């Protein structure tokens, strides 16, 4: 019985992972050879791919409950190997990954079905589903990964697809600029994840999540890594999670991400993408348990983020931004829970919050109609909520905080002044030196060739 359950779990996990990947491969290849499928065929392919993944994911629940060990490692083989070094394709099926797999598959299916109608006759209909399949494949890879290397691959796929979804309406300059900003934040924070993996290899000698918890099932894993190394790795993982989940000081990308189409917003910052940060930290929980400094950092950053988001969210004038900041408030609270040492609570919080927020964002385009219906039903204008706390403050403080919230706590300005600006200056200085040197060698006028990095008016990417 045990072996049957094990085999079943392996098969279901494999199907749940590969279904979105097959969809991605089909859509991608057809587009690449210049034969993109019609809307109808795309819709059928998407339905088939996501339904298959959803059924397989749902099947994992009874399979996991029936298994005595409450966890399984699915060995898919070796991707490549050389003299003791190998990248193993291993899936981790346990009480952490299965809820996320089910959530991912269900939300992909719901958003796919919604988008089929929402984007009907949109010129980039096929491209949206290609990116959705890429995001789905990446998310599945992250949540099912049995090794940190595999998780990193999925993490990167989610990052690129998210940025491209933000810039989905590519004929307008604002989405394009915002897509680049999102990608920059992601990419730089991803260095934390890879650096953490590098240190993990160095400290533990393996990047297997199973071995990270000494073989015990989640959330009972125990790490034997030295405290110093566990702290360093946890902080690096926390950096990656902060970028992916838009925590302070990286929250500036969140309102910029509103430029994407509503269905991608629902799955991107409402449900899956922003919760991958908490997922990563929960997966690395054995290390966090040995790193009180990193745990404290999570509590502080999470609390700051929750405070920031609830403050800024109150002054937003469009529903998508308001929902995004509401989402961020909850994500901040989830980080606090993880930092305080809870494991099952943040997991339940993630799943519940993702479902609620997705529903709200998918309904956002119909918000005016919904409000009018409710107001008609109650026979009057709905009262404003959330103003009690604000009225407790003195009027000067109210004005000051209102301005501060409108400017989103100046976080982007802070990043621009402290990081982007100096970096740009340094690069510009280096480039000027390069040009002068080569012009001197070649015997041309340096100033005539000095085109790089000088500010020019007009649209900037």
């Amino acid at each position, binding site marked *: 019985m045990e072996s049957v359950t094990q085999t079943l779990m392996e098969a279901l996990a494999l199907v749940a992972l590969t279904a979105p990947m097959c969809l991605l491969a089909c859509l991608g290849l057809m*587009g*690449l*050879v*210049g034969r993109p499928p019609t809307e109808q065929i795309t819709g059928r392919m998407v339905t088939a791919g996501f339904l298959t993944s959803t059924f397989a994911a749902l099947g994992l629940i009874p399979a996991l409950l029936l298994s005595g060990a409450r966890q399984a490692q699915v060995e898919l083989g070796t*991707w*490549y190997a*050389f*003299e*003791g*070094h190998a*990248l193993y394709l291993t899936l981790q099926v346990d009480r952490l990954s299965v809820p996320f797999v089910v959530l991912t598959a269900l939300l992909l299916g719901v958003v796919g079905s919604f988008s089929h109608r929402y984007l009907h006759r949109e*010129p980039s209909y096929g491209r949206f589903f290609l990116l959705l399949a890429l995001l789905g494949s990446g998310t599945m890879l992250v949540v099912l990964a049995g090794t940190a290397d595999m998780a990193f*691959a*999925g993490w*990167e*796929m989610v990052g*690129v697809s998210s*940025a491209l979804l933000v*810039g989905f309406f*590519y*004929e307008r*300059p604002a989405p*394009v*600029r915002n*897509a*680049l900003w999102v*990608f*920059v934040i992601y*990419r*730089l924070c*991803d*260095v934390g994840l*890879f*650096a953490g993996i*590098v*240190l993990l*290899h*160095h400290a533990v000698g393996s990047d297997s999540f199973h071995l990270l918890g000494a073989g015990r099932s989640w959330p009972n894993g125990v790490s034997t890594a030295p405290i110093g190394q566990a702290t360093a790795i946890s902080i690096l993982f926390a950096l990656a999670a902060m970028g992916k989940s838009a925590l302070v000081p990286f929250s500036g990308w969140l309102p910029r991400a509103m430029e994407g189409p509503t269905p991608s917003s629902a799955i991107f910052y409402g449900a899956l993408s922003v919760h991958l940060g908490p997922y990563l930290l929960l997966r690395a929980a054995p290390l966090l348990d040995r790193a009180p400094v990193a745990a404290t950092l999570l509590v502080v950053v999470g609390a700051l983020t929750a405070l920031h988001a609830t403050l800024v969210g109150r002054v937003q004038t469009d529903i998508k931004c308001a929902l995004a900041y509401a989402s961020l408030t909850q994500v901040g609270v989830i980080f606090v829970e993880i930092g305080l040492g809870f494991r099952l609570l943040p997991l339940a919080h993630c799943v519940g919050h993702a479902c609620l927020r997705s529903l709200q964002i998918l309904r956002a385009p119909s918000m005016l109609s919904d409000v009018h219906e409710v107001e008609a039903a109650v026979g009057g204008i709905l009262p404003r909520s959330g103003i009690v706390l604000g009225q407790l403050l003195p009027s000067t403080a109210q004005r000051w905080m209102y301005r501060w919230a409108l400017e989103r706590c100046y976080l982007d300005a802070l990043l621009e002044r402290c990081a982007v600006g100096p*970096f*740009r200056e*340094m*690069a510009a200085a*280096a*480039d000027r030196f*390069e040009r002068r040197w*080569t*012009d001197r*060698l*070649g*015997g*041309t006028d340096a100033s005539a060739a000095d*085109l*790089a*990095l*000088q500010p*020019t008016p*007009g*649209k*900037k*990417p």
Partner: protein
Amino acid sequence: MIESIFEFPELVPALLAIASLAVDRSLSVRSATRIGAGAAAVACALTVGGWVLGPPPESHGGHFTIDVLSRVLLPYVTFAFLCILVASPRRDRDPASLARLLLAEALVAALFSTRSPGLIAAFWALSPVPVWAALRTRSRPVAKVFAIYAGTSAALLAAGVALGSGGDDPSAAGVVLVALAILMHKGVMPFHSWVPVLFEKGAMWTALAYMLPQAGAYAVMRLLVPAAGALGRGPLWAIATAALATALYGAVVGVGQREAMRALGFVVMSQFALVLVGLDTVTSVGLLGGLTMWLSSGLALTGLGLALRALEVRRGTLRLDILSGGHDRMPLLAAAFLILGLASVGFPGTLGFVAEDLLVRGAIGTYPHVGIGIVLATALNGITILRAYLALFCGARETSSVAVGLKPRESLVLTALVLLLLFTGIIPGPVVASRREAVRAALQGAKLPPPGPGHH
């Protein structure tokens, strides 16, 4: 027929050199293209066939030989040059340019077919000549800058080889001179300034023809790694450190560029420097990572360069500080640009990811900071790539009525490169296996002691 390239390693270089002469005498672009493409295709077929179907290579002991290292490098070079020849726009395919391109290919093929230090020095000195000749017709100042670096590099290598950089008792002075020559040829700091200029002011084919073979990496494998056993890891680690600094520096400066070709130059400089980082770790996995990145970044950046050139022909100067749009009018070009660009910086699902993973794993055993430096450099290069994609293809509606679609030969080459990088990224086993023997042979030749407790 295919086995003949093992019996006569001079066959491919000779064929290309003869074709170069014939092309130079052609009277029209069409006939020059036919002759050139035919010769390049035959060279590619011979080398690929030799790799896939040929017998296990054996050392012939002569001046020219195809061994486990060159067995994969030759198909790589001939395929990349074939892509350049086929996908270059018509204005780049005048008989004189094509003849120089074929001559450059012949010299590189000859270089990759020899292990003799003297011949390496000779082909090393000759290989920049066709590129320099083409640059002179376009921009004399650029040709002068290029000549200063390439000429100095050739002189240093010749002096190093003359002093004795190889064998069981290599001269330290010879090794230092060879190392300096390699740094100059590869565009490693502080000898890197010519690389962005070559891409910005030169024709794309000249930049690709000189950079993509990565003759500097070949010289490391042939001249420096064998000397490591006698002189220790010091010289190699010095090169690796300089290469890592170059990768980071190129990535930082590349992010802020306002001109697409110059930005590509910095990305190429940065990514190709990572190949040296891997080779100079002289660990089995690091070497494997370096050799794999040699192929992956070379093919991806060749495709990226060709895509940029195709766009430049249609649009003129490519600026990154304005949003140009045109995605819906050139969807294949935009998609190919994005995929090739991401492949060059190690996006999952492409061969670049495998190469970067191996490279980092090879480095972390002994020096974890090298691994983190590699990741930081590729992260910054990734930002440059996406920035270029968004600026060149998005952000505006292109209203020009001029037809801008790709020609079939351009589509064919870009699609082939994309599929090749994706296929080898998803199934990397054959590529990794093909490099395994080269790594073992290099380590055997180096006779190195283990580098430390962290070495795997």
